[in-house]
Every structure is written in structure tokens, then in C-alpha cells.
């Protein structure tokens, strides 16, 4: 065939692993019900192994007999030597099976997979986090790593939106973040309830109250596809460059290794080149959002 070749530069180096499809037997050491739909599972790999993940990476979680699902890691590498956390919404077969598991039950883990957030590039920058809904689960991994190395970063601004107060995740951490004077946390819900005294409105309504220095700001947003379009308008409107806006693209990765095709966005496999991308990288990709 006589056509010019363009290899995608971010695909990883070749390596052969006979165990690639075989999950490691991991143990659930703690389960916490966060909301009616979301639980946090603390998981330990065999023999005290560390997962060795970066914020933004995901694992394939197996419930043998049911199947496998990609779940992003919710704990920070700086806090998860021998155990890591997965925040899981009960929405499909595998996640429902996971929700019926008890402490000390076994699940399977493959990974971590994908390209996480380029934390090194964030050093010295002001960070504007904009998680929406379950998007806080993967972003919490990055936020907590930043907080554990707080001196290395500039301002930390978190704009968090959920549909209603009962769907707010990690409420105890939100409280901690609210109390710290080196974090600017703004929380909103689409619809309040009788007890809600905070901000009401979709996440984009939080942007008008904050002022930033766009040249030194990196924005990181994770949420459902519909949210990205509106949040991107706000971020670009604040003068943040396309290369300094990062987001994580959800896809139904069946293999995690760039083969099964389910996460393909044009010529890119989100499980290999992503799930974290800069807006600049995906701007020209049809079907990315």
C-alpha cells in the first residue's frame, strides 16, 4: 500500500503480557455509601502491591460471572500506597453487582490504564477545577494530590455542581475544603431542597463570581458530555487558552488496551491517548463531545 503513514505519537511502547486480560484478585476492604446511588469501595491488591496509578487513570473492574467495567480511580496516589478508592454509581450490570458486594469480598482489577492528568505541567499554576456530578470522582484523585503538595501550586479554585443536595459526593471532604483558607470552593445544585442554603443553579452560574489571571490558570473539568459544551464556553470566555483546559472523556472501554474499538474517537483510542485530553487536542475531533 502506497499511502503516507502517520503513527499516533501517544500510543504506548510495545510490551507483551500474557496476563493482559486476566484481572488481579483484589479485596474490598471498606465500603461507604455516599449517596443513594454512589458507593466508595476501598480496594486492596494482593500482597500489598500498590496500584501505581496517576490521577485521571482508570481500572477495569471485574465481577466474575457478570462482566467488566471501566471505573476511574478516585483516590490520590499520594494517599493510596496499598489501597485505592473507586467511587461507583449503580447504573449497569457490573456496577449493580459491585453495589451488592460486601467488605472482604473479592473483585478483579486490571490496570491502571490510559493517560492521566499531566500534573507536572500544573506546577506553579493557578488551578481551576470544575467537576460536575460524578465527575468529582476522578477529579478528587487530582485535587487531593494537589492538596498534598499544596505549596507547589498557585490558587486552587473548585467549582462543583450537582443536580441536587442529595447527590453531592464526598460531603466530608467538601466540608474540609470549605474550611481551608488555601482553597476557594464554590458549590451549586441545580435544584435545592428545604434544607439547602447554598447556591442554586447549573455549574456555569458559578463562573461569573470568580476572577482569575487566565495566563497562569489551568482549568480541569470532568462531567457529562452535555456539561462540557457550556463549561468550555465559560472557560474560554475567561481567557484560558485551549491548551490549558483539560477534560476527561468518558467512553465504554471494553479492553483498556486500544483494541476493542469502543472508545474510538476518529483515529484516537480514548483508553490509550486519553481519557484525559486538553481541549486543544480534541477540538478538531468530530464526535469527541
Amino acid at each position, binding site marked *: 500500500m502506497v499511502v503516507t503513514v*502517520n503513527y499516533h505519537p501517544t500510543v*504506548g511502547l510495545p510490551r507483551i503480557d500474557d496476563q*493482559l486480560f486476566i484481572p488481579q484478585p483484589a479485596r474490598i476492604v471498606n465500603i461507604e455509601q455516599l449517596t443513594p446511588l454512589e458507593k466508595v469501595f476501598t480496594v486492596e491488591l494482593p500482597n500489598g502491591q500498590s496500584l501505581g496509578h496517576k490521577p485521571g487513570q482508570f481500572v477495569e473492574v471485574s465481577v466474575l460471572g457478570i*462482566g*467488566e467495567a471501566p471505573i476511574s480511580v478516585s483516590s490520590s496516589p499520594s494517599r493510596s500506597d496499598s489501597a485505592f478508592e473507586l467511587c461507583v454509581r449503580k447504573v449497569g450490570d457490573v456496577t449493580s453487582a459491585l453495589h451488592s458486594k460486601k467488605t472482604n469480598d473479592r473483585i478483579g482489577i486490571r490496570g491502571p490504564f490510559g493517560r492521566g492528568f499531566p500534573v507536572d505541567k500544573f506546577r506553579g499554576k493557578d488551578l481551576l477545577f470544575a467537576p460536575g456530578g460524578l465527575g468529582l470522582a476522578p477529579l478528587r484523585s487530582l485535587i487531593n494530590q494537589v492538596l498534598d503538595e499544596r505549596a507547589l501550586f498557585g490558587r486552587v479554585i473548585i467549582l462543583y455542581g450537582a443536580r441536587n443536595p442529595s447527590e453531592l459526593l464526598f460531603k466530608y471532604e467538601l466540608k474540609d475544603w470549605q474550611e481551608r483558607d488555601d482553597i476557594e470552593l464554590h458549590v451549586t445544585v441545580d435544584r435545592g431542597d428545604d434544607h439547602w442554603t447554598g447556591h442554586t443553579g447549573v455549574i456555569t452560574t458559578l463562573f461569573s463570581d470568580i476572577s482569575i489571571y487566565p495566563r497562569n490558570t489551568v482549568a480541569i473539568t470532568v462531567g457529562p458530555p452535555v456539561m462540557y459544551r457550556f463549561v468550555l464556553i465559560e472557560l474560554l470566555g475567561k481567557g484560558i487558552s485551549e491548551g490549558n483546559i483539560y477534560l476527561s472523556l468518558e467512553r*465504554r472501554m471494553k479492553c483498556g488496551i486500544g*483494541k476493542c474499538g469502543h472508545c474510538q474517537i476518529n483515529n484516537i483510542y480514548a483508553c490509550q491517548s486519553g481519557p484525559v485530553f486538553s481541549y486543544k487536542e480534541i477540538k478538531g475531533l468530530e464526535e469527541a463531545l
Partner: protein
Amino acid sequence: MSLTIIPKQELNNFIGSVLRHYRVAGPVETNGHYVFDMISDPAELKLDYPTTILPPKKYLLPPSETLFHYDLSGNNRVQPDQRAQPTVIFGVHTCDLHAIQLLDVVFSSGHADPSYLNRRSHALIVSIECLAPCDEHSFCKSMGTLTAEEGYDLHFTDLGEAYAVDIGTEAGDNLLAENADASPASPEDIKKLSAVLSEKWPKFSYRLDFDLSDLPSLLSLSMKSPLWSELAKRCLSCAACTNVCPTCFCFDVRDEIELDLKHGQRVRIWDSCQLDMFATVAGGHNFRQSRALRLRHRFMRKGKYILEAHGHLGCVGCGRCARACVVDITPVNVFNELYHQQES
């Protein structure tokens, strides 16, 4: 490597001998169609077959394949699937050979796929030169797959009374040396081979109205073409096209439980980007909700995306998808129509 000659009457002895050491798959006739199947007798092989319903891909990436077995009753004990059996795939056309070369790149790059590579490393490929077009749907000449210089262990060309056999690899050389009474090609044989190859060329026609090297850029310009919505009006999203494609490699991963409810296996099965659930995520969002987007994705993959990702075109011009499509959506017509839209 070198060129060898096997007289036709010697072929059955060769294959018969190979059958003692390997599983042999090849083209056989069934109910008026041709399929690749395991043979037990050399006489079953129909080496002058036009084309097969499914490509030989199925021996390297089976429609359903067990990744590992597990035992739910004990400690969730997991055992990998058993190793592949040595297999000779006989009579592979050069379009399918090019497709296998793409699959080799896909499954050995990045995270190398142990399951595919296990089967692949146990397979020997004996290809055969096509001397006439298989039917009106193929367009191998346009896709540059009408012949092949590599990718085979042995490559056969029908010289009438005998086969010229090109030895592509050491494994192919050994297969021939151990199982056939072959002789080195004489200058006359080489002359005859040259004549056969020259005669075949004009029998095939170029069916794309533009140069193949323009296909990726043509597709880049065609992202917003109205053709995708027009074709989507008749596309049934039935996935017949992707099921018969020699280069489609997407798969789903599923768990299957035995009736004893104690044992199970994780399998991967062929999947299709044409099915509506393919790009749907857990919350229900579908990134290619419309048939037009799914159809576009398939043609973009064939002529552009796969090339950009893996360095080989995702279409080898075998024509199987055109044959399988019940509403007559064919790559030749789609690519040509996009070209003429850009021209006008």
C-alpha cells in the same frame, strides 16, 4: 526468498503430509458458496475459489474466543485459555493477506494482545495469487492488494501444470522441505511465472475514480458530506458489512456462566460499530447515535482512521461488505461519490 516448483499432481501429497502435523484450513465449497474450513482430505480444497463468505481472519480472531475460565465456587480461581494449535491456513488471497498484515500491526502494537499473538504465532499462511477477478464487487487493484510481496510463509501461483511457490519465511521453507517433493524453479519456470503475472494484470480494473493516495484527504474533506445522511436512509445498521470484513477487529467482552452456576468464562466476541449500543456509555449517552454517524465512522475507519493509527489502510478491496449489504451500499460507490461531490 527463493522460488520453487510443485507439480500439480504433487499438491495432494504435500497437503496430505502437512495434515499429519498441522490443522489445515482452506477454501471449501458448501451449498454453492465457498468458506474457509478445516479439512481432513486434500481433495476438499478448492484453490480456484472466487471468494469466501468470511475471511480467514476467523482463525486468528475467532468470532467468539475464551480469554480465561474461572471457578466461582472456590476462590474465584482464574485459568487462561489453552494454547493455540499449530494451523496452516491454505489458499489465502492477497487481499486477505494484506488484511492479516494490518491485524498483526494492530494486535502487536501498544499493549500486545496475547490471545491474538498466540494464535498468530501458531499459524502458517500459504497464500495464492489471484489470476482473475473473483466477481464484480472486488476492487483489489484499486486498493493496491492485487498482489503481495510479503506477509506469507509460502505463496502459490498457478502455472497450469504446476504451482510456482514463493518462499516467504524460514518456517515456510521448512514446511515445504519437510512435506513436499519440490524442485527449484528453472529459467523457463520463471519466464512462465512472469508471463502469468503480466497476463493477469489487465484482467482486473481500477474501480476508484481517483488515486488511492488521495483517499485519506478525500475523507477528511467529507466529514460534513450530505452523503452520510442520504445513505443512512437505507442503511439498516445490520452489521453484515463489519461481520464479513477482513480488517474489522472490534470486539465486545462478556462473561458466560455455565448451567452449573459454578464455572464460567470471559469471552470476547466480534462487535460492530454499526450497532446502536456500540458507542453508548453507562449513563445512556450515545456518541454516534444516528445511523449516518455510524456509517460515516465505518468508512472513515476504512480509508483514514486506521491508516492514521496503524499505518495500513483499513480496506483491502475484497468486496465482501458490498456482497453482504442488502441495500447495496458499497465502498467503491461511496468513495467515488464523495470524490465527485468534491469535484463538483
